């Protein structure tokens, strides 16, 4: 029983970083209707910028982290404004190719500028200290990630529910034409959505970087976040979060009780099962194709 509880705790811990990536992906999917495969690299570049601010320019960790989040916001807006918006007669396939292309460009840029050596980001708390409750443990870093993820979810909920811009974003996502007719500048809304998405992803990257930093560090969280978003429903923010936690917990239980060999790929088996049973995801109300 102890093992089972430990696996669930560890699954929730790892699910938090997946959840942040999933949130970022769903935000963009709702705005631009594209699965955003540059999500990981939109976080990767700001994380390395933070590292550079600390080691090359001597800034403190907090200033560097805020700098990275600000940079992520600008980067997300820029990618939407300069690339995605410029796509002529975009269909989903074309936009997916655009995001994969951007992913390769940003990854190449980071690899070229910073090299492939592994490194770690300084952080106020140790990555390997932990809280023990009897035989159960949770690392302090996992706790921080969990609380930060919950805080971001609450902030996003409040933002969409009560802020004018948040309501405009929801309106744009639900019916862009009607939103435009109501005076909402939908292009600007989409651009800011990309910025917010990059910022949320960067939070996840900054919380992973104290353990290890390398150009491919965001690849796995991005894939698992995507898996979580698909499981929960690409159009549902709470669904994406819940899906990400499901992926984390299922991975751990599968690794613990069934097979460690296939632990890393079980998330994709979950996607297949969910898509067969409920194609729009567990939490999306229904799938409506816009015409």
């Amino acid at each position, binding site marked *: 029983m102890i093992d089972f509880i430990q*696996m669930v705790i560890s699954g929730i811990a*790892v699910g938090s970083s997946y959840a942040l990536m999933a949130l970022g992906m769903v935000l963009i999917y709702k705005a631009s209707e594209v699965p955003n495969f540059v999500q990981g690299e939109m976080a990767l570049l700001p994380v390395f910028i933070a590292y550079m601010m600390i080691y090359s320019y001597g800034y403190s960790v907090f200033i560097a982290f805020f700098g990275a989040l600000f940079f992520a916001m600008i980067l997300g807006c820029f990618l939407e404004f300069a690339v995605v918006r410029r796509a002529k007669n975009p269909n989903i396939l074309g936009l997916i190719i655009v995001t994969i292309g951007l992913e390769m460009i940003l990854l190449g840029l980071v690899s070229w500028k910073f090299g*492939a050596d592994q490194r770690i980001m300084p952080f106020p708390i140790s990555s390997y200290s*932990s809280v023990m409750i009897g035989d159960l443990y949770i690392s302090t870093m996992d706790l921080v990630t969990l609380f930060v993820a919950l805080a971001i979810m609450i902030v996003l909920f409040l933002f969409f529910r009560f802020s004018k811009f948040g309501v405009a974003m929801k309106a744009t996502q639900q019916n862009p034409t009607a939103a435009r007719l109501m005076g909402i500048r939908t292009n600007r809304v989409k651009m800011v959505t990309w910025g917010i998405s990059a910022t949320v992803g960067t939070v996840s990257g900054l919380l992973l970087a104290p*353990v290890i930093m390398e150009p*491919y560090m965001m690849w*796995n969280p991005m894939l698992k976040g995507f898996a979580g978003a698909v499981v929960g429903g690409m159009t549902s923010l709470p669904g994406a979060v819940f899906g990400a936690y499901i992926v984390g917990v299922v991975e*751990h239980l599968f690794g613990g009780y069934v097979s460690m060999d296939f632990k890393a790929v079980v998330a994709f088996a979950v996607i297949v099962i969910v898509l067969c049973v409920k194609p729009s995801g567990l939490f999306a109300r229904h799938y409506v194709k816009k015409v």
Partner: protein
Amino acid sequence: MKKTLFAVLFGALVVFGMLSTGYCEIGVTDTEIHIGQWSPQSGPAAAWGAVARGTDAYFKWINANGGIHGRKLVHHYFDDGYNPARTIAGVKQLQEQRGMFAWVGGVGTAPGLAVKEYLMQKKIPWIGPAAGSWHWVTPPQKYLFNVYPLYLGDAQLLVEHAAKKMGKKSIAVVYQEDDYGEQGLAGTKHMLEKYNMELAAAVPVAMGDSDMRPHAMRLSRSNADAVLLFISPVAASRIIGIGKAMNYAPQWMSSSTCGDCPLMIDITQGLYEGVITSSFGMLETGEKVGDLQHINDPKHKLVAEYKKDVYGKFAARDERWGYTFVVGIGLAEPLVEAIKRAGRDLTRERLVEELEKMENFRGVLGRITYGPLDPNNPLTRIGQQELFLHQCTADGGSRILTNWIETEYIPMGH
């Protein structure tokens, strides 16, 4: 008359053309020797790209000192991203369009296996694959000369040290799900059988898996008091870190793949202190058990010289001086030595002859010995079988735990 004149002129051109290059060995001209190499400069294994950059700087240093018998070494290395499909495409392109005399290094078992048959069928020498795979010597190939000690040897030394010297009663292994990890697992099992011990746990790690919590948990539940790691440096740092968070503290032991103490101390925030790793290079014969060494201040005379002259003058500005870079030099040393011994009349057959005569050659790695090809004897192509153990210290240095130890060749795949 015109036809005769044309034939004579054509013949003369061919003859003079051949004379000007001396003879017709692919990849060798009067002034140059072309050597090929692949390595991941991008992708998840890009940290191993330093192997090719080490070789490159080494060749540049040789050229700056006059080359070999009046010829410069022209090094062609390309980025295969650790993707076997790209490896074979790149090797064929360089070989068939540019013409390589020989190949050196080449990171990874899977990329190497993708081109092994091609190189052997074309009778192109390949020296020092940068992976300790038994595939390079089983069966031995005339043109393939291994340098990197087999991972089976790492397992042998580590288990022996844990069980005999340290008196560990329960040994577990964490292995990467590929040829590297599976050899480590096989070597561990072989040695445990020898000592009548049970394997406490065998925990596989998938390539690219970044979540090591379940792995650490399974190790912790096994109660192993020594854990052998045949995984990547990133996976090792994660698993040791999570072990620390779980208050699980066995004696961690690792193959030479995670033997770069300065790097490992850095990325584990010091948790790598006390970890025992095998190593196949940079131990001066005169150094004693208990001595401290540090790659940034090497006692090994040749390593110190390479640091000053090869790395200092020919490495890129942001290149890190580390084990991987030095291994790139070490894997190329037997090739360079054989080219020197072959003299001015360099052919592939002469190169193979000289390599086969090589006995106890020592550069920055351990002693390297080959012999005339015997299809039933892998030792004729195994090169180096020596390893030693060291234990990482807090400052990124290491304490020497053993002298060079000749490992036993454990047959696999039979």
